[in-house]
């Protein structure tokens, strides 16, 4: 990795990395280093913006950051995929058939593709808790809608470009909506409030298929419990 330091005013500098993976590595190294001048880090697709406290000497800090990056074994901070956040999705979004047309896939194939890879939060932006998830099936790349919606409900699962996302709160939005989840991804009372942090892993599962297979696989006892919970219908 050959990172560069770019100017970003007198209270920040921009670390230019090569790609998402090296960006996440730079962000992880900077988090670990806990440099006292660093106020906040904003990792994005290929860069990390480092915001600093008043009076920080930026040239020296830039050199220190380059040292940190080049002096580290970057393989060790790449992160593990073994503990993804699992988000159950009802694939019932209003743009699901448009996505099918744009990709040439059937709706079932869209669902299989969306649930078939582990996604990684490249960065969080646009709105509080809105994580840009990368690493999806390449066939799922679709453009944004030609017209944005003025209001997208919280929990909407969406696609745009190479990314997928879940709208954590109601907001305007121009992404293609393919489903909904009842998972809470934004909670100001939680620490941290955003359930998906930069670099975090996410796996989507088909909530309806899961229910069906759970019933198929279940022992008689748990089927009976489910029936009891839902009011004892036969």
């Amino acid at each position, binding site marked *: 990795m050959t990172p560069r330091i770019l100017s970003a005013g007198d209270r920040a500098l*921009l670390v230019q990395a090569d790609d998402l993976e090296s960006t996440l590595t730079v962000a992880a190294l900077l988090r670990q280093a806990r440099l006292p001048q660093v106020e906040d880090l904003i990792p994005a697709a290929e860069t990390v913006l480092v915001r600093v406290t008043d009076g920080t000497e930026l040239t020296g800090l830039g050199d220190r950051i380059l040292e940190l990056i080049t002096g580290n074994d970057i393989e060790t901070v790449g992160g593990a995929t073994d503990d993804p956040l699992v988000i159950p999705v009802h694939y019932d979004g209003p743009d699901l058939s448009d996505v099918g047309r744009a990709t040439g896939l059937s709706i079932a194939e869209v669902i299989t593709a969306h649930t078939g890879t582990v996604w990684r939060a490249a960065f969080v932006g646009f709105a509080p808790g809105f994580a840009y998830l990368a690493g999806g099936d390449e066939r799922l790349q679709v453009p944004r809608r030609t017209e944005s919606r003025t209001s997208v409900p919280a929990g909407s699962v969406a696609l745009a470009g190479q990314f997928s996302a879940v709208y954590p709160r109601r907001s305007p939005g121009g992404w293609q909506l393919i489903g909904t989840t009842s998972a809470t991804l934004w909670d100001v009372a939680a620490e941290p409030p955003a359930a998906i942090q930069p670099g975090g892993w996410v796996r989507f599962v088909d909530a309806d298929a899961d229910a069906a297979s759970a019933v198929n696989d279940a022992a008689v006892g748990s089927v009976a419990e489910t029936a009891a919970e839902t009011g004892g219908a036969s």
Partner: protein
Amino acid sequence: MNRSLTVLRTGPLCLVQDAGRVGHAADGVGRSGAADRRSAAQANALVGNRADAAVLECTLGGLSVRAEDDLVVALTGAPAPADIDGEAVTHATRIRLASGKTLRLRTPRAGLRSYLAVEGGIAVDPVLGSRSTDTLSGLGPEPVAKNDRLPVGPEISDPADDSGTDQPGTEIGAPVTDLRVIFGPRDDWFDNRDELTTGEWLVSAQSNRVGLRLDRPDTDDATPPALQRKQSRELPSEGVALGAIQVPPSGQPVLFLADHPITGGYPVIAVVIDADIDAAAQLRPGQRLRFVPVADP
């Protein structure tokens, strides 16, 4: 029982603001906070508060508040003529506002945002460590509205000494405001980056706490954009700093203020230095500014 203020009237926009939210970038949360931080800190110093206490930020004045208890207040920022029950009060001084009296701000003669600090601070509930209203994300308290009863923090037993009252305010009302900029990070995306620091820019009416949208004076829609990008590819989204000047394909730059998005997809040609952000936050639509290049620190 909290001391309090009752809001009788607001102008176009009145918000609770403090020093903003720090350390929540990973949650996608921007800093927000007072747009003109220096004026907010000056108001706090005048009443003996810490610099990061919550104040009221009034865009184009228009606020009337009634004290429900004996309070000490100060007005700074855009100098709005103000009175207490008809008796004029002085800008940027410590003012006693007795219980039952009404403080009224009219429209400022110059500048955009006036600040009202109250000894003890505006004590609404904080969200993620701040009482600021972020107009972009909607975090924090609702905008201040008529009939709101705003809680005020406890009296300060050990007020800051008089040195606090020497704290300078923001310079407001120059015919043309000079803002110092450092080029980058994406100045190499433009054929003619010096176009930014040549001539005057006009603050457009589509400006707010997110940013100032800038036009060239005496141009119309048929005029080609001043800043021509040489890169036509898209910029992968990247973090943007307070004061960043982002250039969308229209060539009409946006100077990001307190409620700016934390990431953006258009190249940032230059960033206004921190010391000049407060002056930028006091510019009204129709005012003129120049960008003055300074060396990288």
